[in-house]
């Protein structure tokens, strides 16, 4: 056997052929080549941290989408669709599309016109250094932790799927990310995100196509799912293929949620918070070359986001319909902690999140398998690169430049940016090993990350649309919303029956709890901001110019044709979105 193949051998989900390894190695060579090529174009702060603010709408839009389309996302939501059925598609449709359109048509003008480098930077301009400090420190901390978790998760997946050594996966991915982001900055991260977007489609699109052929089309797949779930005595098996019709009651669907949680918790708060204020994704749109491109970028991202369920949700559903063990018995996937326990491993169990690799191995021969694995690796690496580039930007502009050295030169910021990129990767490696020895941290940090998003949306949206909001109101509202979210999380951890108050039902699963916690924390943030603003002194209008609705002259797209108009394409995306909801009702 080839020595390289011996290194990767072991008890694994799939086995790579030499051509698969060539496909993977070519990917690593290409991303390093891109980093080296772009090194000469990252000389100024705007070049390194904002990709020169010269990205076209297509590049910024695909990077905006890809920054969110990591492998944790792909494998996790494929697993969720196996677990919860088509309800998981809500996270791609109502949990993304309205928010992306809102960012494009309502919020983007404010971000673009005030020329901020980051979301915490906008908060500084609007509410002062207090809100900037809370936002930037929490964001930097969470981002670098998430990068480490991404790294660890990739190493675990590569071990389970391919039998690769954990240390080898962490080392090779972190060194590659450190090199290409430190060399080319945000531009390099964006280039690789667009490359990853193509690789993901090229590597994953065959699974639903071949799966639907095998299942006998959509109706054949639905019939098989109902038959399989009925055999396993699962209650209400028909609910696995309906998007809205089972959301009238908590007990009618596998997620234990109702339409209020989906529409208001997910669509109006979590999605709005994530897609409009999480700097990891917003940074990609801020790199657009002009306002029209910045408005079109999220709309292009939304158009493709609507199609992602085809390569993520559908494989999960197909797994529910088709997966059988080598003896021909129905295969039932289980929670990851059970699958990866010694007992689970002895029984040959697989976790929900393994449904995508299992489907990949089912249909893809040599070459195609390598491309599918490359798509997963690319997703993990661009997730890491996205976190590290956003971390560096916030650290340099919103912590170092705002509080430590306000007079730092552009050249010094770029030099520091390169070093902090490497340091960010090193801290991520430390986090990865920390998580490896205390895996419960992973659950806590992922929850912590969501604590900041929902209240932040309340603060930013009030700041943009209500000129009476004061610095004290913004700062205290953000703090109150965040603390209340942490408090609700701790309350349910200490007393699980408290879920009946937090999520309105004892049947609420983790996702349902997240939705309602986000909803309450955003409402608390808004109420506190409004009350405190009413009793404190507002900023004069002259200080709010270009930051608030009514005081910001927004250029109209008067000289562009209908087919170049963001409003037109936003309407097209909205219509397709509504049609999809009706089709899968």
């Amino acid at each position: 056997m080839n020595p390289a193949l011996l290194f990767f051998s072991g008890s694994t989900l799939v086995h790579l052929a030499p051509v698969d390894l060539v496909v993977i190695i070519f990917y690593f060579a290409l991303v390093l080549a891109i980093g080296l090529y772009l090194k000469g174009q990252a000389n100024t702060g705007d070049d390194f941290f904002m990709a020169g603010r010269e990205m076209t709408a297509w590049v910024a839009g695909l990077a905006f989408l890809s920054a969110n389309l990591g492998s944790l996302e792909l494998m996790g939501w494929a697993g969720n669709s196996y677990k919860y059925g088509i309800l998981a598609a809500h996270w791609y449709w109502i949990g993304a599309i309205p928010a992306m359109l809102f960012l494009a048509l309502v919020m983007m003008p404010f971000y673009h016109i005030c020329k901020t480098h980051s979301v915490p930077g906008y908060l500084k301009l609007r509410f002062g250094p207090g809100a900037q400090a809370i936002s930037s420190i929490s964001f930097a901390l969470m981002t670098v932790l998430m990068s480490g978790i991404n790294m660890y998760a990739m190493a675990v997946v590569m071990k389970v799927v391919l039998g690769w050594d954990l240390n080898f996966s962490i080392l090779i991915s972190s060194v590659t990310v450190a090199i290409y982001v430190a060399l080319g900055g945000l531009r390099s991260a964006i280039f690789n995100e667009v490359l990853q977007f193509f690789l993901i489609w090229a590597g994953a699109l065959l699974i639903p196509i071949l799966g639907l052929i095998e299942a006998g089309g959509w109706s054949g797949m639905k019939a098989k799912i109902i038959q399989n779930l009925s055999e396993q005595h699962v209650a209400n098996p028909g609910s696995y293929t309906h998007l809205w019709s089972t959301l009238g009651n908590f007990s009618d669907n596998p997620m234990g949620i109702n339409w209020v949680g989906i529409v208001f918790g997910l669509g109006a708060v979590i999605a709005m918070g994530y897609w409009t204020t999480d700097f990891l994704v917003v940074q990609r749109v801020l790199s657009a070359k002009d306002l029209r491109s910045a408005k079109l970028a999220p709309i292009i991202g939304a158009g493709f986001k609507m199609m992602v369920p085809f390569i993520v949700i559908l494989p999960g559903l197909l797994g529910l319909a088709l997966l059988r063990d080598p003896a021909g018995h129905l295969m039932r996937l289980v929670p990851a902690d059970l699958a990866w326990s010694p007992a689970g491993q002895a029984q040959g169990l697989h976790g929900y999140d393994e449904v995508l690799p299992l489907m990949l191995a089912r249909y893809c021969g040599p070459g195609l398998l390598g491309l599918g694995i490359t798509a997963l690796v690319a997703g993990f690496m661009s997730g890491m690169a996205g976190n590290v580039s956003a971390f560096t930007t916030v650290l340099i502009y919103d912590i170092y430049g705002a509080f430590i050295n306000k007079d730092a030169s552009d050249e010094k910021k770029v030099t520091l940016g390169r070093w902090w990129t490497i340091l960010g990767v090193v801290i991520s490696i430390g986090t990865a090993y920390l998580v490896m020895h205390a895996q419960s941290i992973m659950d806590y940090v992922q929850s912590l990350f969501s604590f900041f998003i929902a209240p932040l949306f309340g603060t930013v949206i009030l700041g943009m649309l209500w000129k009476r909001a004061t610095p004290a109101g913004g700062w205290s509202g953000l703090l109150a919303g965040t603390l209340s979210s942490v408090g609700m999380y701790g309350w349910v951890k200490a007393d699980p029956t408290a879920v009946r108050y937090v999520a309105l039902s004892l049947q609420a699963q983790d996702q349902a709890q997240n939705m309602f916690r986000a909803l309450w924390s955003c409402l608390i943030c808004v109420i506190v901001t409004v009350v405190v603003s009413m009793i404190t002194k507002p900023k004069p209008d002259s200080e709010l110019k270009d930051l608030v609705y009514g005081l910001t002259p927004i250029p109209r797209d008067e000289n562009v044709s209908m087919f170049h108009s963001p409003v037109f394409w936003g309407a097209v995306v909205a219509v397709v979105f509504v049609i999809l909801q009706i089709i899968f009702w």
Partner: protein
Amino acid sequence: MNSGGNLSIWFFIGVSLLVNGVLIFGSGIYEAIYPPVNKVVLYDLHATIWWGGFLLVLGLVYCIRFSPARERARAGK
């Protein structure tokens, strides 16, 4: 569109699709001539051949459309 010097990002995409297409298409042809013992589900559809061929053609189109020579010519206009 040129978002980064003389080489467009779409050229890199084209190179990636082209090389992967060649490798996958070649692997599919090899498998068709020497069928494996453990076949994937729906092996008879030969997805490796037509999907590899599709990626190859798409990559070629991108490489030609966004080649450095064309980009330079466009920038010179």
